[in-house]
C-alpha cells in the first residue's frame, strides 16, 4: 500500500476547495433519494454487494446512525466500528485499524476522529474512498451539506418553481442561479472549536451565500485571514441582517470553557434566547447541528418553534449521506478531484 500504483479514488474530506458542480450533484442526488424515502419500501439496490465501514473514534448518535441507515437504504452492508471495546484499547494505531478494515474488503470508509486531519491521513493510507464524518476542529462536510439541503428545501419552496425533471419539489438551482445566492447566514457560537462552522463557512460561501460568524472574541478563530466570511461580536446586530441562523453547540469538551466566563454570561450574550428569536423576521429559520446544550446556546422554546429546522436537518442528513455514499462508491473517477487530498506540497522555495 505504501508504494506502487495507487488506484485513483476520491474522497469527501471537507468543503474547502470542493467543486461547486460536485456540491450541486450531491444535493440533486439527495433530492432524488428524498423521493425514494417516500416509497413504501424506501430502499434502492444501487450499492448491493458493497460494504460501507463506519469507523468512529468519538461518541456520536446522529452522524453514525445516519451514515449506517443511509448505507442500508442503498442496500450496502455496514461494518460498524467504535473505538471503545476494540483493539484500539490494546493500543492499535489508526493506520493499522483502517488497514485491517480495508483488508476485510470494505468499499468505503466513513471516519470520525478527534484529531484534525485524521480523515486525510486515512485517505493517504488506504486505497478506498474516505468520507470525513468529523475530524477534530477541522471539517464535517456532510453536516454542512445536510444543512444546505434543509435550507435549500425551505428556500426553493418559497420560490415555488417545480422541477418536473425530478418531481421532488422545487429545484435548488434555477435559471437565475442557486436559491442560496445572497442568503445571509449567521453562524453563532464557538467558531474556533467548531468543525461544523468551518464546513458551513466554505460550503455556503461557494453556494453564493454571505456568511457572518458571531461569537465571543475568545471563541472566534485567533486569526481569520483567508476565511470567506465576515466576523462579528454582537449577536443582536448580526441578527438584524440574518435570513438564517446556525446556532453551534458550545463544545466544552474541546476547550470552549477556557474562552468564556460563565455559561450564564454566554447565554446572555450569544444564546439564541426566546426573546431574541421573537425579534427575528417571520421567515428567518434557525438551525442547530445537535446535540443541543438546552438553555445555553439556544432556548427550548426556539428549538420547538416553527422556525427551527432541527428535525428537518436530521432528515436531510440521511439523504445527503445516501448521495455521498452513492457517488463515492459508484462514480466515475475524476469527479471529486477538487476535494481529494492533493499531492504533497513541493518542498523548498
Amino acid at each position, binding site marked *: 500500500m505504501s508504494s506502487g500504483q495507487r488506484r485513483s479514488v476520491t474522497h469527501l474530506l471537507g468543503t*474547502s476547495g470542493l467543486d461547486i458542480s460536485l456540491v450541486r450533484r450531491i444535493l440533486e442526488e439527495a433530492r432524488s433519494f428524498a423521493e425514494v424515502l417516500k416509497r413504501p419500501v424506501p430502499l434502492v439496490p444501487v450499492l448491493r454487494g458493497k460494504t460501507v465501514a463506519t469507523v468512529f473514534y468519538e461518541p456520536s448518535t446522529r452522524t453514525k446512525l445516519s451514515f449506517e441507515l443511509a448505507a442500508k437504504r442503498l442496500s450496502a452492508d455496514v461494518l460498524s466500528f467504535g473505538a471503545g471495546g476494540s483493539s484500539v484499547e490494546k493500543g492499535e*494505531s*489508526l*493506520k493499522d485499524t483502517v488497514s485491517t478494515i480495508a483488508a476485510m474488503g470494505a468499499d468505503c470508509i466513513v471516519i470520525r*476522529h478527534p*484529531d*484534525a*486531519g*485524521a480523515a*486525510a*491521513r486515512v485517505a*493517504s*493510507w488506504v486505497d478506498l474512498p474516505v468520507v470525513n464524518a468529523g*475530524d*477534530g*476542529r*477541522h*471539517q464535517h462536510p456532510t453536516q454542512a451539506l445536510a444543512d444546505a439541503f434543509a435550507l435549500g428545501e425551505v428556500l426553493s419552496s418559497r420560490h415555488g418553481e417545480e422541477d418536473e425533471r425530478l418531481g421532488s419539489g422545487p429545484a435548488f438551482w434555477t435559471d437565475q442561479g442557486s436559491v442560496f445566492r445572497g442568503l445571509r447566514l449567521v453562524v453563532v457560537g464557538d467558531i*474556533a*472549536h467548531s*468543525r461544523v462552522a*468551518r464546513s458551513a463557512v*466554505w460550503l455556503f460561501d461557494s453556494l453564493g451565500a454571505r456568511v457572518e460568524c458571531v461569537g465571543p472574541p475568545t471563541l472566534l*478563530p*485567533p*486569526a*481569520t*485571514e*483567508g*476565511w470567506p466570511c465576515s466576523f462579528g461580536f454582537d449577536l443582536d446586530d448580526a441578527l438584524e441582517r440574518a435570513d438564517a441562523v446556525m446556532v453551534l453547540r458550545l463544545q466544552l*469538551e*474541546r*476547550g470552549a*470553557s*477556557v474562552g468564556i466566563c460563565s455559561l450564564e454570561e454566554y447565554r446572555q450574550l450569544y444564546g439564541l434566547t426566546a426573546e431574541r428569536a421573537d425579534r427575528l423576521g417571520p421567515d428567518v429559520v434557525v438551525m442547530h447541528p445537535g446535540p443541543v446544550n438546552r438553555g445555553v446556546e439556544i432556548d427550548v422554546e426556539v428549538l420547538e418553534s416553527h422556525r427551527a429546522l432541527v428535525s428537518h436537518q436530521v432528515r436531510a442528513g440521511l439523504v445527503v449521506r445516501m448521495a455521498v455514499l452513492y457517488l463515492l462508491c459508484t462514480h466515475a473517477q475524476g469527479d471529486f478531484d477538487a476535494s481529494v*487530498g*492533493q499531492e*504533497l*506540497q513541493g*518542498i*523548498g*522555495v
Partner: protein
Amino acid sequence: MSGEEAAVLLKGGTIVDPPPVLQSDRGSDGGEAGFVEDADLLIRRGRVVERGKGLAARGARVLDVSGMLVFPGFVDIHAHVREPGAEYSEDLKSLTEAAVLGGYVGVVLMPNTDPPIDSVEAFRAMQARADAVGVCHVYWAACVTRGRAGHGLTPMASLAREGVRLFTDDGAFVWDSRVMRDALLWAKRLAVVVADHAEDPWLCGEWPRAWGGEVLTSAGGLSNRGIEGAPWAGGGSRAGRSSVASPYPRSEAAPGSANESGYTASLGLAGRPREAEKIAVERDIVLCEATGARLHVMHVSAKESVEAIHRAKEQGVPLTAEVTPHHLALTERALKNFDPVYRVNPPLRTEADRQALLEAVCEGTIDAVATDHAPHAQHLKELPFEKAPPGIAGLEVAAALCYELLVEAGLVELPRFAELFSSGPARVAGLIGNKGLGRRLEPGVEANVTVFDPSSSWVYEPSRSATKAKLTPWNGRKFCGRVVHTFVGGRHVVERSKLRMEGVEAS
C-alpha cells in the same frame, strides 16, 4: 575509532575560510575570509600538515576533490538523540552516522532524553557511551532544571566542571523568569551558555508541568493527563509533582501544533502564535542584558523574533541565535495534507517569516544554522497530525538544503556559509578550538574537514539514510550539492558519500 590513519592528500579543491574567530586563526593568507581555488590539503596524523598549491603526495593517499568545496568540518549545536529512552527512534550510533553523512564532525546533543541529562552521573554515563560508539565528536548539553520541570536548577557548576558547555531545557521554555535569571547568573560565572526554546507554553496551549500539566517529552508525550481531577495537583509526572493549584480550567483540547494563522485555523489546528515566540525572546533578551550572560536563542522562526534579536544585538546584548534548515525551506502551507512529518516546534510559519529568516542569515543576525534534528520512529509519524510528536530529522540534508537556499540562490558567499556551518555554531556553543572545531584549515589544526561537491545531484532516500527517522519532509527530494567526504580528527569517516568502514583502506 582509534588507530592511525594513513596520510591523505585532498587535491585540487576549493578551500573555504570562514572569518577568523581566534587570533591564532589569522593564517597564511592574513586571516581574511575567503576561498582558495585549486588548492591541496595534506592531512597526516590527525592534523592538517600542509596547505597550498601543487603539494607532493609523499606517500599520502590522494583524493581528487577538484570542483569540490573543502570546508572546516561542520558543527551542529542542536541535535536530539533518543538514547536513553527511545532508542528505536535514534541511538548514538545512528545519530552520529547521520551526522557525518551530513558533513558534521561535531554535534551538541540535547538533554531531553528519558531520563534527561540533568545530573553529573547521567552526563558521565552518556558522554562515555557517546565517546565509545559515536563516529564524530559528541558534546552533551545538560538541562537547566532538574527533570526539565522548569524549576530547581541542575548542578550547573559540577556539570560545567565535567565539560558541559551548553545548558538547555530544549523542548520546553524556561518559563519561570526567576529560574532563568538564576541560570544565567550561574552561566556567566561558569562561562557557559544557556540556550532557550523560546515559546511561551501558555499561549501554545501547553500547561507547564509544574502547574500540573505536562510539557512535551522526547518521546512526544502530549497528554494533559497531569491535570485530571480537581484541584489540578497531584497527577502528572514524577518531576512535575507540585502542590500549586493550577488556575487553569480543565480542558481536553490539544496543544498548539501549527503556526497560528487563518490558514491553520481553517485546518482546525490549534495554534502556536508568533507572539508566543516573541514574548519568550523579549524576556530572554531582558534577562540576558541584565545578567551579561551568554544566552542563545534556539530555532528562531518568526519575523518579529528576528527583529527583536537584531535590535538587541545592535544594543550589544551578548546573545546569539540559530535558525533551522526546515524553517528556511518550508512554510505552514506544507500542512495541507496533515502529514505529521511537517509537525515541529516552533512551527513552520509563513512565507514572510521564511523570507525574514533568510534575510537575517544574510545580514548576520543569525549566528549559526542548527538542524534541530529531532528523529521519530516511523510509527510515531504515522499518527494523526495532532497526535504525532513534533520534530524533523535533518542532519543528512541540512548542508545540501542550505547550500541550495543560501549559496545557489546567491544570498550568501562561501565564507559566510562556512561560518554558518562551522565556526559560527562552534563559537555559539563554546567549542571553538575544542578538538579543532570551527578552526580554519591551517597547518597544525586538527583535521576536521567536510568536502562538499556542489555539482553532485542526488535524491534523499530514507532507505539509504543512517537516521532511524524514516519519515521526513525530505524523502524523495532531489538535491544539488552533496557531502562527499568527512574527516573527523583526521579519520576519514565518510568517503564518496558513504560511511567508511573502520580499517578498510580505499585504494
